[in-house]
């Protein structure tokens, strides 16, 4: 039997076409982890992830097989977070900081590299090994800086993917990563320099 001429050629049935659950469920731990970090509340994070799944399910018809599902669903999570209560509150808080940051994207660094106070590598290794202190420092990062650290370091996304998730230029991604790491380093060095205060950040964890 031959196909009629006006019949559009439809690709053969592809048994490899992934199902939503096959793609989404393996990412559930990552989505939840990032959601708790951003919302700072496990209950809110569950709501956030559930809503993300619902939106992703509804939009899955439009998802192009073979494209980056992880970046796609993280973008949904992030947009859902932005419209959530905690996200809206955080957006208001960091609005000014964002303005300052955008200025920092194009021009040279305001602080010369040589002016940054650095400690010896031995001391740096010491404070980096303090997981609780590092988590406490991460908690103090503003959401725009925290999310790039989570996507870059924890989720091991490339700059291009992070730019896609956050819908910002790659230059802004790089700028935020530099700012986030500088802030973490500064906070951690502070905990080492002043032993009497070192428990303040990590005590709550």
């Amino acid at each position, binding site marked *: 039997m031959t196909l009629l001429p006006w019949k559009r050629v439809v690709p053969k049935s592809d048994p490899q076409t992934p199902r939503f659950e096959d793609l989404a469920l393996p990412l559930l731990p990552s989505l939840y982890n990032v959601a708790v970090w951003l919302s700072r509340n496990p209950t809110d994070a569950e709501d956030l992830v559930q809503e993300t799944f619902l939106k992703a399910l*509804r939009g899955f018809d439009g998802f192009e097989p073979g494209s980056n599902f992880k970046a796609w669903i993280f973008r949904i999570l992030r947009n859902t977070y932005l419209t959530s209560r905690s996200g809206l509150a955080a957006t208001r808080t960091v609005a000014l900081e964002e303005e300052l940051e955008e200025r920092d994207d194009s021009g040279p660094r305001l602080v010369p590299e040589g002016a940054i106070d650095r400690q010896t590598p031995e001391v740096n290794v010491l404070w980096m090994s303090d997981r609780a202190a590092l988590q406490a420092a991460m908690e103090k990062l503003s959401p725009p800086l925290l999310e790039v650290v989570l996507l870059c*370091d924890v989720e*091991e996304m490339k700059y291009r993917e992070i730019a896609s998730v956050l819908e910002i230029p790659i230059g802004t991604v790089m700028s935020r990563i530099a700012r986030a790491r500088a802030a973490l380093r500064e906070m951690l060095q502070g905990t080492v320099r002043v032993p009497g205060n070192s428990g303040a950040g990590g005590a709550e964890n």
Partner: protein
Amino acid sequence: MSDHLTSALLNALADGELSGDQSAIVSEHLAGCPECTSRALEQSLLKSATAKAGERYTVSAEFQGRMERLISEAKSSRPVKSPSQPQRAWNESSLRWASLAAVLLVCVTIFGLQRWSSRTVSETTGLVLEVRDQHIATLAANAPPEVISSDRHTVKPWFQGKIPFSFNLPQNLPEDTTLDGANLTYLGGRPTAQLLYSVGKHRVSIFVRQEPTASGLPLRFPDQAGFHVTGFRAGGLEVVAVSDTEMGRLSDLVSRFEQAQAGGQGGAK
């Protein structure tokens, strides 16, 4: 050495994001600069330490199960379009299909008259899906309601001249429930008031539109993809509420809304 590596280059090095040219330049520089080598090591250590510290929260088995059920329920209630399923080509049975279509056309014509007096199941299902979709779209849109107010005396008058009917908002809301605002929208092509409430941290949409056939029959809706849907008809109005909050709390809010339409003890005005 005056031109040490910039933070951007050190970060790109730690993140494996250097281009080929940059990589060669950086390698050459690091070979002769202990200070930058130390900083590169520090950056790399910070990245790996952050990666470990960031993996902090784990999914409970209960939530994992809930998400698996959510997916299976959503897929069963709204089958996902399967692009891989090839369409069957026209064949010798096309005449039979044409006959069937003709019969169906006659049936539709006959039953079309009956639709004035009774709603079909598919209509109800369609309404539920539309209500749910509008609710999700409202949550997804990064935009405030058209009228933002927790004051019912602000929200209700806002609809004057926008919709061809009026309704009452309950004065006394259940505990932890607030009015967030409202939108003018359309359901089934008819102007509809979408009232937005928050029950705890859950959002509720209550849609109010004119009910053309004032049947007074209670509305019963199945849950849709984790959302509860309930409603009532009274006084020529059809009210449908949707939310992912607990059904009991949603019903409580809706019953107060119903009392408000009747001007009863719910505190209507």
